[in-house]
């Protein structure tokens, strides 16, 4: 017994020794983490202000601004290059993300509510299939979806991107958990006893209570659609329909191709920088929703 205790205290001594002052240790780790996670973003900010040649031969290296500040010139060029298709890509991304996200959320909210508050035959089987679908990798669906769509002539339309993004089994799962935990059956029962119909109960009693979960499912769906790359890249060939993720990679490829084609590195960097601003701002302002949303379902009650 005493040996064990001795061992333990020796152990903790070494640990304390390794850690030194835990506060300083933590600070050092966090500072290193901040540097690492901010490095590419800082690089991008700087790069977006450079000319094409400044990116290669900038006078102060790649982590500091060049003598020539070209940011506004780059924006001007983005607006004129290929008839300003860049802004169209941004608009497409907004369309796909917001409309797709809204649709996916509406469907997930209804389904989560339905699974949580109604009993019907086959429900468990139905829901278990949805749970199983959480494991089917979304990218494994891309080629099959493409094959199906090309068979019915639906590729190269906005629907080819919008409609598949309505599928959000994770959202259904989160909504069901939330409804089960935060929406008391008694409340719904009371509304029914008062003579409210199911739709009215849903809209006036349940939806307000579900708001936090709805917000998070919406935000997660929007991010998913905004970041989507594989699906639009496969189903779209008309550049006018591209979201920003696909558009920028086309420019990158073009610049990489070298001498024969045009090099637009400065447009790739400034375009990339501008494209991340909306989502980064949304993150900063909606912090608590993200955190809440990511936790829902991850914590066993």
């Amino acid at each position, binding site marked *: 017994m005493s040996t064990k205790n001795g061992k333990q205290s020796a152990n903790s001594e070494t640990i304390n020794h390794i850690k030194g002052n835990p506060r300083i240790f933590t600070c050092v780790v966090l500072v290193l*983490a901040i540097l690492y996670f901010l490095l*590419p973003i800082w690089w991008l900010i700087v790069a977006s202000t450079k000319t094409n040649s400044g990116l290669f031969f900038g006078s102060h290296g*790649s982590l500091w601004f060049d003598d020539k500040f070209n940011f506004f010139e780059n924006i001007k060029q983005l607006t004129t290059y290929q008839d300003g298709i860049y802004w169209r890509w941004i608009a497409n991304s907004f369309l796909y993300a917001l409309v797709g996200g809204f649709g996916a959320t509406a*469907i997930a909210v209804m389904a989560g509510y*339905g699974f949580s508050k109604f009993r019907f035959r086959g429900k468990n089987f139905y829901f278990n299939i949805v749970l199983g679908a959480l494991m089917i990798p979304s990218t494994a669906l891309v080629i099959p979806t493409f094959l*199906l769509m090309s*068979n019915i002539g639906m590729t190269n339309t906005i629907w080819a991107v919008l409609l598949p993004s309505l599928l959000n089994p994770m959202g259904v799962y989160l909504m069901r958990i939330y409804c089960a935990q935060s929406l008391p059956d008694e409340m719904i029962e009371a509304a029914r006893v008062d003579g409210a119909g199911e739709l009215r109960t849903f809209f006036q009693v349940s939806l307000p209570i579900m708001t936090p979960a709805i917000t998070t499912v919406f935000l997660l769906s929007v991010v998913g659609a905004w970041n989507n*790359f594989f699906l639009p890249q496969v189903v779209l060939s008309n550049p006018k329909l591209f979201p920003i993720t696909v558009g920028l*990679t086309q420019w990158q490829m073009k610049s990489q191709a070298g001498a024969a084609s045009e090099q637009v590195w400065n447009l790739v960097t400034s375009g*990339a920088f501008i494209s991340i601003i909306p989502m980064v701002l949304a993150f900063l302002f909606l912090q608590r929703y993200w955190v809440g949303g990511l936790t829902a379902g991850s914590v066993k009650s």
Partner: protein
Amino acid sequence: MKKTTNKKQGASASAVEKKRARWGWFFTAPFGIVFLIFLVIPLAYAFYVSLFTYTQVRGNAFTGLANYKRVITDPIFMQGMGRVILYTIVMVPIQLGLALIFALLLDSFKNKFASVSRLVIFLPYAIPGVIGALMWGFMYSKNMGPFTTVFQLFGLGTPAFLTSKGIFGALVNVVTWQWTGYYMVILYSALQSISPDLYESARLDGANEFKIATKIKIPMVSSSLVMVTIFSLIGTLQFYTEPTILRNQAPTAIPIEYTPNMYAQALAFDYNQTNYSATVSFALGLVVVIFSVIFMKLTKKQSGLGD
């Protein structure tokens, strides 16, 4: 008298039940339809397509499971599969290890600085994978990246990130940068939901912070750890975006069939082998599902997903 009312009540109760059931279907139907059209039917269709083989001579001929026989002996597919499995083995522990360390540090160190750090570590999640890969691709570049200057300071040459030797680490780094914060936030929030009383009594018993972390905090968030592991497992096996983007810069280091998803795309678009492409997609999906099921079975106790 009593009996009839009971009966009547029973009848009306079942009518209510029926009505409720109908509403249940009403609420879940839109999802069911989307689920059917964009998950069940594509998968069924892909499976159907995979049972055929197109040849110039015979056209589209039914060949049963021949394509599956081909896929498991296809060295290109197997190499791709081996690669993503290797990525999984390396990347999942790195990401989750870092995420857990950050989460534990932030949880024990609550102040303004910690909340700023939390936000910064999470920030890459707000940036599309494509843009993340683009940025790192630029940074890896010998001509444009900062590493040349940094390494010159120490009299060293730039590490060759974009060669077949360096590309593995280069991709691990991009994905780690992108996803660690997301997993960290999930684990951090799980830590937040533990009652502080537990730590108090542990401290009274003489436990130090390290002990509290390993003996209380980590076990308490094990269900979140399992969930996060499944996410990152599924994500890594589907590896596509990052190698596709970096391939533009490093076509020799990243062949077009680098991962199974890239292979499926190449088959469909570059090689015009629709049937076989469907087979590869289907096989990949199957492998991912098998991996996740095995992992969930192994961790059934922690996951809480089993029941």
